[in-house]
């Protein structure tokens, strides 16, 4: 299964980019599944199911940090997507904590940033940008040529990753994002988190990077929303 993890601040355009990409990937014969992780509200699962007829679901992290939640449930989610017959899983994160990075080794990590968010944003966010493979800069239709260039220079200054500018509303720049998704190899074997979150209070923070609740201790949850405690 190919996995695309899409992170980025709220309303940066994650859903809009993924919808544009989904249309093209489905036309190219891919079988998609979609998972949205959010804290207390999301309707993207319905949008993806109704628009594209693909298996789609969401999970609310509630009191749990959404990026921790994603580490716990992604193991289940990959099994679910496989059982649904998908060959490519989109995961859209909540993107609330800019320090954490929900990317997985071997998956394509995309950070979606909006060009309208101020030119210094790339210097303010840490691992969410530096551990991604690709930054997609949305809303370029709203900013000047100069700002597009300054924004890109600031991203490259903060982290040497690939950058694609897009007007996601009109599908401009999306073909290149899709090509990158298609070039991504399927994730095989053990699923591992790419980096460790900055504060250590649980097994995930303390550097245990395995994906799936089975590998962790403390307050845990499954994709089916069972919330339970497992001591060491």
């Amino acid at each position, binding site marked *: 299964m190919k996995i695309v993890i899409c992170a980025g601040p709220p309303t940066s355009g994650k859903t809009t980019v993924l919808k544009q990409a989904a249309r093209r990937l489905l036309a190219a014969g891919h079988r998609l599944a979609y998972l949205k992780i959010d804290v207390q509200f999301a309707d993207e699962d319905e949008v993806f199911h109704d628009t594209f007829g693909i298996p789609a679901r969401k999970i609310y992290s509630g009191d749990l940090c959404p990026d921790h939640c994603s580490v716990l449930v992604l193991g289940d989610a990959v099994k679910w997507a496989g059982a649904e017959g998908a060959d490519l899983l989109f995961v859209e994160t909540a993107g609330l904590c800019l320090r954490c990075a929900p990317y997985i080794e071997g998956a394509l990590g995309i950070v979606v940033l909006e060009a309208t968010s101020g030119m210094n944003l790339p210097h303010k966010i840490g691992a969410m940008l530096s551990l991604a493979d690709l930054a997609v800069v949305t809303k370029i239709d*709203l900013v*000047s040529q100069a700002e597009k260039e*300054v924004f890109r220079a600031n991203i490259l200054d903060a982290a040497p990753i690939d950058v694609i*500018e897009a007007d996601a509303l009109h599908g401009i*720049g999306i073909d290149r994002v899709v090509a990158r998704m298609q070039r991504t190899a399927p994730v095989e074997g053990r699923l591992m988190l790419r980096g460790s979150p900055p504060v250590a209070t649980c097994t995930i923070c303390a550097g245990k990077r395995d994906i799936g609740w089975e590998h962790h201790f403390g307050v845990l949850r499954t994709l089916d929303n069972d919330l339970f405690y497992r001591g060491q």
Partner: protein
Amino acid sequence: MDIERITVIGGRGRSGDREPLEGLDLEMGAVISIVGPTGSGKTALINDIGLFANRNTPSLRQILINGSTPPEDCLDDPSRNPIALITQHTTFLSDLPVHRFLSLHARIRKHPRPADVVEETIDFANQLTGEPVVVDVAMTELSGGQTRALLIADAVVIGNAPIILLDEIENAGIDRTRALELLRRYRKIFVFVTHDPRIALLSDSRLIMHTGAMQAQLLTSPEERGMAERIRAVDDLLLELRERIRAGDRVAFEALGEAIARARSALSKEEGS
């Protein structure tokens, strides 16, 4: 990349029928207006050009540069993209002071003499606006017209894009005649989406749009060029009226006597004189 020519290979209009005009070639230095009623697909066409459409937009048009599909790398990086597209929604969001912001852009572009291009950009913008741009105010404090003027100046001078697409510059309240004169000093391909007859007649040709499809390209005839000159006096009359109203004056027909007389004589001139 040296741009010699950009080609639009026609696709289909909104109804799904083939476009009457099969294609459009714009040579380096061409100045063209895109005209047509509201909703006729003018903006859609320049969006197609701006994204190097490759039969992947609703119009199924294809864009070629120098006769072939554009190389990947010109899309990879906005500073290497030969096209600057200024839409009706494009604006500056940076709150840096004008001078610092433009210097930053010039530095990223690695201009050998950044101070000179910044100066040239501000000069250019000031020739288009009523009130000169104050260089130490924040970009976001500029007026709508000043913003528009500076967007154009920055794309032309610092950005130095060889192809410039502009959607409805007339709405910015900037001096259109002056803008065209100034822009023509730079050798570039200019594409204006416009509802303004003067901009259309001052262009080398105009493309007629209807129901989402390219209908025909009309070269501006010598007679039309002459007309642009002659209606200039009418335009100047309206501009003078605008200036007086802007300045807070009361206006009266008599007070505009001279401008009216000029307009009348320009319009009644014999053909060919």
